[in-house]
């Protein structure tokens, strides 16, 4: 019973949302452990197939800390998405997490990282050929 509920909770805490046509995002909130990152990985990859998206964003703004295992899992997710033909961006890395990553000596290599989810979305849109233009207001002032 409790394991069942724990599984359901795990499913509920990892939503994959479509931000734009061809851009999906996973906003992660709360502490990450390897079981949760595993669920995130599987769910994200399945969503890429279901929606035919070529861009994925993993937003870790709400994650207070990561350890080596979780960081490795995130990296694996990015590489797996790349194998499937999608590009994966990590956004919202907190200063402490950045320090941890560097201190632990984890190589992010050529994985694009962006400061905020907004930056990551803009990056994904530009890469998929969408141009974002601020419309000039007419008749104002």
């Amino acid at each position, binding site marked *: 019973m409790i394991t069942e509920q724990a599984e359901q909770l795990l499913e509920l805490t990892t939503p994959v949302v479509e931000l734009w046509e061809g851009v999906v995002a996973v906003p992660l909130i709360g502490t990450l452990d390897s079981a949760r990152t595993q669920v995130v*990985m*599987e769910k994200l*990859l*399945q969503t*890429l*197939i279901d929606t*035919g*998206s*070529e861009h994925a964003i993993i937003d870790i703004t709400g994650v207070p800390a990561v350890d080596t295992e979780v960081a490795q899992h995130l990296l*694996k997710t990015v*590489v*797996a*998405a*790349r*194998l*499937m*033909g*999608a590009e994966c961006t990590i956004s919202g890395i907190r200063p402490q997490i950045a320090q941890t990553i560097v201190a632990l000596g984890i190589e992010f290599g050529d994985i694009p990282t962006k400061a905020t989810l907004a930056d990551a979305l803009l990056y994904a849109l530009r890469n998929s050929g969408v141009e974002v233009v601020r419309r000039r207001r007419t008749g104002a002032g």
Partner: protein
Amino acid sequence: MDRVPILSLGDVLLVSIQVDLQDESVVALQEDLAERIVDSGASGVVIDISAVEIVDSFIGRMFATIASLSKVLDAETVVVGMRPAVAITLVELGLSLQGVRTALDLERGLAALRQRRAEREIPLADESDEAVEAPTAAWD
């Protein structure tokens, strides 16, 4: 042993893997493909693995081998339709397939090849214009 068919689609060779791969058929595929690329002068190879559910390290390496093999023969390889489970397995095996292009499905794979070819194409200079102009320049 099942032989994997290689189909020709314009100047692209399409390898659609619909059976569970055995080690021998993988080796045969590599040989067949190399021969077909040379015979047809194809500029691209698309490997559709959307029906492949199980991979091991040998098959994983096959993608990398085929990609570098076709690169030597001046054809670009795109692996399309990889399933999530397959992608996870390859990552767990430590095969990140650097240098292999991937796409979500066949359509996007072909589009990527087409785009790559358009980028690579160098327009030939029109010689006839120069030939007309050159004598006048000499007389002046």
